[in-house]
């Protein structure tokens, strides 16, 4: 078990290495640099800035310096926000993004799984149709469209919630719903399918025939077994939340990490862009490991190998 987890965690390192090399090369392939302003800087100034930030050195040397600093936790100076380090900027946005992600994740699990269970228990009756409609809507509506619709209805028309920002609980409601819409649909669909599959199993028939009350068959046999495969889609769900939050932050003008990402690309803020990409890649890779381990933990039939 420990060996398996260690190996999976160590595998993240080469993945991050590959991601960093690809991003680094792509980034430096972009024409223009961090000093491009509306007013052209004098060549001498630009050369001095380049020397100061080490941008005059060969690419592999720049990469090596970046990698060494990154390994020690130093993300470097920001090129655009010159009075701040990348560590400060990331630290500012990071918790906002994490908070949004956790809330959306909780909401999608809390709503999605019961919806799926209800649909399966009321198979081909109204709970099933309700769940199916909700999941069709959720899957067919991109998060940014859902976000816009929520803003139009609940902020502009009804005035219940603010249209954007991140200053208190009332600001959290709409972004969380907008981000959770798609995962709710996916989780509900998957739970429903998994429950229906379990209903046909022999051990359910056995439980019924030996006279176990219907309620405990459902709660002790069906739901517990049906939820095992559902854990597998939590991985893709978390990955979706990580990158999805980036669009939602933009629509709702939330000061999370995603906000800085596009700016970092646009202004060629190399160090900030690298830091953001690495953080996203790490989050996706790490959450995948967590879900795999969780899956093996829940279902003893699965061996770590």
């Amino acid at each position, binding site marked *: 078990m420990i060996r398996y987890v260690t190996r999976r965690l160590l595998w993240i390192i080469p993945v991050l290495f590959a991601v960093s090399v690809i991003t680094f090369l792509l980034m430096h392939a972009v024409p223009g640099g961090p000093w491009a302003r509306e007013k052209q800087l004098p060549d001498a100034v630009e050369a001095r800035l380049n020397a100061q930030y080490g941008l005059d050195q060969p690419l592999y040397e720049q990469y090596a310096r970046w990698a060494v600093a990154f390994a020690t936790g130093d993300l470097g100076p920001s090129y655009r926000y010159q009075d701040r380090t990348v560590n400060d900027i990331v630290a500012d946005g990071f918790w906002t993004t994490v908070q949004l992600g956790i809330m959306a994740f909780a909401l999608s699990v809390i709503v999605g799984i019961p919806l799926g269970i209800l649909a399966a228990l009321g198979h081909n009756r109204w709970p099933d149709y309700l769940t199916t409609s909700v999941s069709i809507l959720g899957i067919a509506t991109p998060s940014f469209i859902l976000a816009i619709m929520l803003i139009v209805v609940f902020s502009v028309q009804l005035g219940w919630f603010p249209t954007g920002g991140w200053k208190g609980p009332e600001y959290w409601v709409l972004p969380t719903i907008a981000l959770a819409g798609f995962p709710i649909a996916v989780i509900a669909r*998957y739970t429903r399918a998994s429950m229906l599959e379990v209903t046909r199993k022999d051990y359910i028939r056995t439980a019924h025939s030996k006279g176990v009350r219907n309620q405990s068959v459902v709660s002790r046999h069906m739901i517990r077994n049906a939820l095992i495969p559902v854990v597998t889609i939590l991985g893709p769900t978390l990955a979706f939340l990580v990158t999805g939050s980036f669009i939602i932050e933009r629509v709702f003008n939330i000061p999370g990490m995603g906000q800085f990402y596009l700016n970092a690309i646009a202004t060629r803020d190399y160090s900030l862009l690298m830091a953001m990409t690495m953080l996203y890649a790490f989050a996706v890779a790490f959450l995948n490991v967590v879900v795999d381990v969780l899956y093996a933990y829940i279902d003893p039939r699965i061996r770590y190998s």
Partner: protein
Amino acid sequence: MATVTRPLPGQVVREHRSAGLWGDAWGRLRKNRLAVLGLIMVIILLFLGIFGPFLAPWPYAYQDLKAVVAGGSGPLPPGTPGHPLGTDQLGRDLLSRLLDGARISVSVALVVQLVILLIGVPIGALAGWFSGRLDNLLMRFTDIIYAFPDLLFIIILSVVFRETAFGRAYDGLLMIFVAIGLTSWVTVSRLVRGQLLSLKETEFVEAARAIGVQDRKIITKHLLPNGVGPIIVAVTLGIPGAILAEATLSYIGIGVQPPRASWGSLINDGYKYIRSEPHLVLFPAIAIAAALASFTFLGDGLRDALDPKLKGKQ
């Protein structure tokens, strides 16, 4: 002595014949109402994507400035004579732009899947056929691609090549096709590999080997027909993802370059007028939702039809 049973006079003999893999699948698909709905919507979408721009009342970039000035210089509402769905603030006909957007979405849907197949199938097939070290190497490679936050990769790629000839080709769409394709082939290649690995071990393939069937024939007669179903399903279910990625990119202003507009950029443009002219956002939003739903329904139906055992599973 052989007895021959023959039908009694007046008895109807009904031959039960299997219609074959595809015939059976079609039979099952036809019974699935959502799948049929999806198929019809997909056909309509394909039709609009191919012929829509010819049916459009105006060229997508034409600015009907006279009508805008006459209407008090702002977006024209739906139902204006000559502009059934209204116009944007520059007097460009929304219906015509939506139809051009249909063409963009259809081409994203098809070309991206083509790119995915071109990359994913050979890599998966190589890994599955020559298992061992090559397999290991290729699968580790897919791990890396899989961990890459794909939307971010597409954005970086688009920005990098935005000003180059490649980035401008076909109004920036070529770039989008390649970028989305490059990030999404992993699923297909893993699928092909898994299919090959398990099919190689099946009894009928072993039997074919035992009686001396050539490798080439085993691949074309046994492996392909048995493995192609899940790939068709994966490709169909991959289409909504590609359409969504394109719409999202255009929405944040990367992607299709103006004056062309995809459904995503129409929403972005229309958002400024959401209070007074919500139709500018509403119609493209409906178009995107319909496109996503249609391919999802069809893909789900195909999955159930091609492999009844897997019904309801992913």
